[in-house]
């Protein structure tokens, strides 16, 4: 009895109720329950944080792959043109000629070869040339690989008018009356071996022809020379990409062997 009374008092001190042996047991378990609840809250909080992170990441990737043409920000482009000009003039020392061959207005499909590995000077240079020649007011979009847009620079590129490469996004841009720059060779061409640096290699991709025919827009070829000399690749690594199945999971047809930053 004395033990029971002691337990009851202890239970009361703990804020519980005394109900004989059952009550004492309940009171004892209550402490564990509190700990368990607290632990559960921590776990739930952890799960929640992890969930939020994963959800945020997924949303970010999803968003980066969505072609919202309104992400293009003419004011941002205009204000960052001097930095782009510095990079292309002092570092890459590039030059774009015959911009007058691009129609003055209306939708147009600019089909270009791609060079230079992950840091492609041709895109930077041509984008600068287009915006300084026609003005930032003219709508201009560029198709890029999913991984480029999901990378940390993706946010900047979206403001420059870069959207994830897909026929739907391309069609939407042309329907909006914009100029659209595509690189049919894409990741395959940009990572070509150094001895193929003077070769245009679209990897037999011809979807741009269908796109232009469907949209009824002119194609203007854009050729860049010298970009591949900023990188040194020895192999596309196409077999390795297929073996690791990144061609299916990440739409990445290459795992280049070499140095291309």
């Amino acid at each position, binding site marked *: 009895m004395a033990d029971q009374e002691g337990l009851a008092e202890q239970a009361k001190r703990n804020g519980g109720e005394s109900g004989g042996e059952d009550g004492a047991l309940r009171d004892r378990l209550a402490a564990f329950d509190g700990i368990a609840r607290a632990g559960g809250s921590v776990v739930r909080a952890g799960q929640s944080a992890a969930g939020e992170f994963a959800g945020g990441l997924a949303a970010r990737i999803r968003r980066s792959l969505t072609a919202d043409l309104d992400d293009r920000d003419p004011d941002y482009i*205009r*204000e960052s043109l*001097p930095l782009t*000009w*510095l990079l292309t003039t002092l570092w890459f020392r590039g030059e*774009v000629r015959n911009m007058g061959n691009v129609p003055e207005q209306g939708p147009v499909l600019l089909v270009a070869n791609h060079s230079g590995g992950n840091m492609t000077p041709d895109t930077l*240079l041509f984008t600068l040339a287009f915006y*300084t*020649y026609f*003005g930032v007011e003219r709508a201009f979009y560029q198709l890029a690989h999913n991984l480029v847009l999901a990378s940390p620079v993706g946010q900047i590129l979206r403001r420059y008018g870069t959207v994830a490469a897909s026929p739907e996004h391309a069609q939407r841009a042309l329907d909006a009356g914009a100029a659209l720059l595509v690189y049919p060779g894409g990741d395959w061409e940009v990572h070509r071996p150094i001895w193929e640096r003077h070769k245009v290699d679209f990897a037999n991709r011809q979807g741009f022809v269908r796109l232009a025919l469907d949209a009824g827009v002119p194609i203007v070829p854009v050729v860049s020379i010298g970009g591949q000399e900023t990188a040194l690749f020895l192999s596309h690594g196409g077999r390795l990409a297929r073996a690791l199945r990144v061609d299916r999971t990440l739409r990445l047809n290459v795992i280049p062997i070499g140095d291309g930053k």
Partner: protein
Amino acid sequence: MRLNESIVISAPPTLVWDYLAEPSNYLHFMSGITRWEVAGEQRTGLGARYRMLIRVGSAEVGGLIEIVEWDERRDMAWSSVLGVDQRGRWRLRELDDGRTRVELRFAYGVAGSGIPGWIAELVSAPPLGGHLRRSLRQLKRQVEHERMRADAAQRRAERNLA
């Protein structure tokens, strides 16, 4: 960034002004200019607009400009409407000996571009200054050549009359 270059031309201000007022001449004497087109109905005078581009470094830079000041035979100023921010001025002053001092002022930049913009202005100043100097030299050559032709034509006319 503001650039300023000047030259003395052996011709009266009227002749220099007539040459500068004609938009089709700019492609002939302005160094680095890749485009100078009339935009709109008005060809010359206050309010006339031109689409101009000048090669600086890796890009052709410019935009749409409008004549905002038109004081005949003395001052012609323009300002940008689209493109890179710019203001320019032709300033003609007659010297005592009948020659003309021509001054070309050019200010440019990109508002809101921050430190990279400031560096870009500094880096682009020498090549742009070179373009302005060459433009003035070519203007002098063209106008003085025009004057010689005009004088020769007048002499011929006087001979024929005599």
